[in-house]
């Protein structure tokens, strides 16, 4: 609540600073002429406004992190906290209860001991809030006054504002990069913890997967952490079955769209294909689990198989392949369209038919782009979670029979993280190691694909 008010206050002060600075700059401008000014008056306004708002916002952000710590320290130092239980969990919940009541988010305490803490809490919160508001205002005021005093006719307010804007944009782009690094770091950290309990060799090359989250966490059985069946399931479903569906269909639709379709047909087929890429994967998951998997099972029964599995690699792979078609086709479409028209004309003028031209000139010339598209599609497929969670099984199976149930890396990540194991049990931590391997593989595929595409672009520029 007070946070919103504070932010609004910062904006209000900024606006006031903007107006004041601008009118001061106008005054200079009237006095010494427009040509004597190094910047337009509104830039002076922005300069002062930035000097007011930025320090205030930064401090508000800092205070909302530091403040609660100061509050709880204050409370713990109060006499009422002296007879709190020493044991972590109970102690925490009492503190939380008291804080909630003090802040007005909970009606009353259940615990008598917590009641004594409400008052210290209320007092501490009030005090630190007041400190925060005062300091924020002082900072904004100081920043504004300092900037305001710097306004002179020859002050280069414009360059400074430009530079600030650049810094802001830079920070915005850093957020994405830093987040990626953060994700990676946490993944690495947990993976290292896991490899401290299970030997990486056992993990990467073992052929039996069956972590038991209820077993003793202290000495896990490394023979139950062999991830090969998962890798195999992932590759079999995502890179083999799905690609057998997606590559020919995607390529053929791209060829049809670029070479045969009339513009009016292309105008609605291409968006329709792209909509396929926008369907939430959970919808494909339903389709795979409720329609395709039973149909395959029935087919297998009809073909005389005894007791076929109701969750087959084939069902998940087929549906995933359909999902991937637009990825393959749009990359292939782009790279075939990027082959210069002169190539096509040259081939047709030699007396080649359209299909010969496609087969012998266009597709070979577009091949790098097509391959890159396929690699991106594979990386997308092996990272896909929803379809396999719904249609593949959790049974790790090392088999080449597509009608058997198989599991994938992503399914096991979900299973391990949502399983009953405590957080520092190797079964749970194995999810991070699996995620790490997946991350590396998809990163590698994307990296290679982007390089290939770049090289390909250069070839035609």
């Amino acid at each position, binding site marked *: 609540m007070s946070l919103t008010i504070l932010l609004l206050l910062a904006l209000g002060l900024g606006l006031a600073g903007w107006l004041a600075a601008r009118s001061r700059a106008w005054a200079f401008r009237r006095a010494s002429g427009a040509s004597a000014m190094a910047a337009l008056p509104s830039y002076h306004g922005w300069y002062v406004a930035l000097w007011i708002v930025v320090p205030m916002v930064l401090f508000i952000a800092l205070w909302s992190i530091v403040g609660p710590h100061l509050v709880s320290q204050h409370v713990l130092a109060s006499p009422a906290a002296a007879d709190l239980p020493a044991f972590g969990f109970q102690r925490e919940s009492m503190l939380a209860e008291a804080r909630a009541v003090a802040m007005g988010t909970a009606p009353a305490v259940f615990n008598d001991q917590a009641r004594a803490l409400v008052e210290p809490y209320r007092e501490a919160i009030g005090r630190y809030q007041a400190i925060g508001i005062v300091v924020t205002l002082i900072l904004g005021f100081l920043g504004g006054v300092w900037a305001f005093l710097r306004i002179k006719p020859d002050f280069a307010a414009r360059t400074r504002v430009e530079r600030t804007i650049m810094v802001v944009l830079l920070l915005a782009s850093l957020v994405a990069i830093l987040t990626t690094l953060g994700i990676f770091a946490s993944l690495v950290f947990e993976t290292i913890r896991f490899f401290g309990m299970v030997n990486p060799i056992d993990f990467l090359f073992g052929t039996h997967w069956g972590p038991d989250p209820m077993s003793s966490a202290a000495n896990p059985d490394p023979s139950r952490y062999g991830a090969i069946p998962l890798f195999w399931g992932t590759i079999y479903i995502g890179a083999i079955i799905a690609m057998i569906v997606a590559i020919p269909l995607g390529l053929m639709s791209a060829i049809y769209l670029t070479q045969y379709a009339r513009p009016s047909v292309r105008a609605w087929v291409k968006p329709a294909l792209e909509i396929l890429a926008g369907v939430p994967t959970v919808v494909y998951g339903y389709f795979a689990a409720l329609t395709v998997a039973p149909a395959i099972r029935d087919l297998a029964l009809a073909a005389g198989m005894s007791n076929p599995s109701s969750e087959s690699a084939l069902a998940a792979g087929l549906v995933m392949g359909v999902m991937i078609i637009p990825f393959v086709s749009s990359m292939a479409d782009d790279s075939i369209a990027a082959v210069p028209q002169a*190539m096509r004309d040259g081939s047709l*003028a*030699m*007396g080649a038919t359209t299909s010969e031209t496609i087969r012998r000139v266009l597709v070979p010339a577009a091949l790098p782009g097509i391959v890159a598209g396929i690699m991106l599609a594979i990386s997308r497929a092996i990272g896909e979670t929803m379809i396999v969670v719904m249609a593949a099984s959790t049974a790790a199976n090392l088999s080449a029979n597509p009608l058997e149930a198989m599991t994938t890396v992503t399914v096991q990540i979900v299973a391990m993280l949502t399983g009953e194991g405590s957080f520092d049990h190797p079964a749970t931590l194995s999810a991070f190691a699996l995620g790490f391997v997946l991350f590396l593989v998809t990163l590698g595929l994307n990296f290679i694909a982007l390089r290939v595409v770049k090289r390909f672009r250069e*070839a035609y520029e």
Partner: protein
Amino acid sequence: MVTVIHPNLDDTEAKMSARDVSVFYGDKMAIDHVSIDIPTKYVTAFIGPSGCGKSTFLRTLNRMNDTIPSARVEGEIVLDGEDIYRSKMDVVQLRARVGMVFQKPNPFPKTIYENIAYGPRIHGLAEGKQELDAIVETSLQRAGLWNEVKDRLEDSGTALSGGQQQRLCIARAIAVDPEVILMDEPCSALDPIATAKIEELIDELNGRYAIVIVTHSMQQAARVSQRTAFFHLGKMVEYGRTSDIFTNPLEERTKDYITGRYG
């Protein structure tokens, strides 16, 4: 407006003849009732200001206009007495007999060898590897490129210089042993030295193939061709021996154009 044919044009043998050919892009007329006899043993040049329809007309001669959905051709064009627009005409065969070289060199992103072997392969002209090798060699020799590339046949065709690429494209067209070669401004992307080489080559090919060349350079037309047709606004204004057209144009517009007074 009928085409003015020079009186002392006495060609008896025509490789291709167009009769009242009109070409439309959608509703827009780009070629307006053009009739011409392309002689067997000479180089014919098409000249005229930009947009007058030279390329359009050239492309009707091997039906490359078929690849443009909006293009429509009326009238009759015959090759050795056969109407090439008749429904039974095999376009694949036609284009093997009437080859084409484009304004910008367009070698395929394949090896030099594969570029030349492309046509013979799709038309099944070679029995085995040896025959194919022989075709590649003679084609490159005729295009005057053999000595420059004989040691690097496995290099990419796109790695050659612009002039070499254009000669590669000519060699590629020659490889299927055509009867007519159409060239649409084959030197406009090349420097003077490469241009001179191509002109030399055209001279050498003259007589073996009927050649039609579109050019914007009066000098080039005068140097390489024996027949010249002047196009203007979709019509063929004047046609005759190159020497006659350049020394004694009968039409005012032709005179203006070749003396550079046009526009």
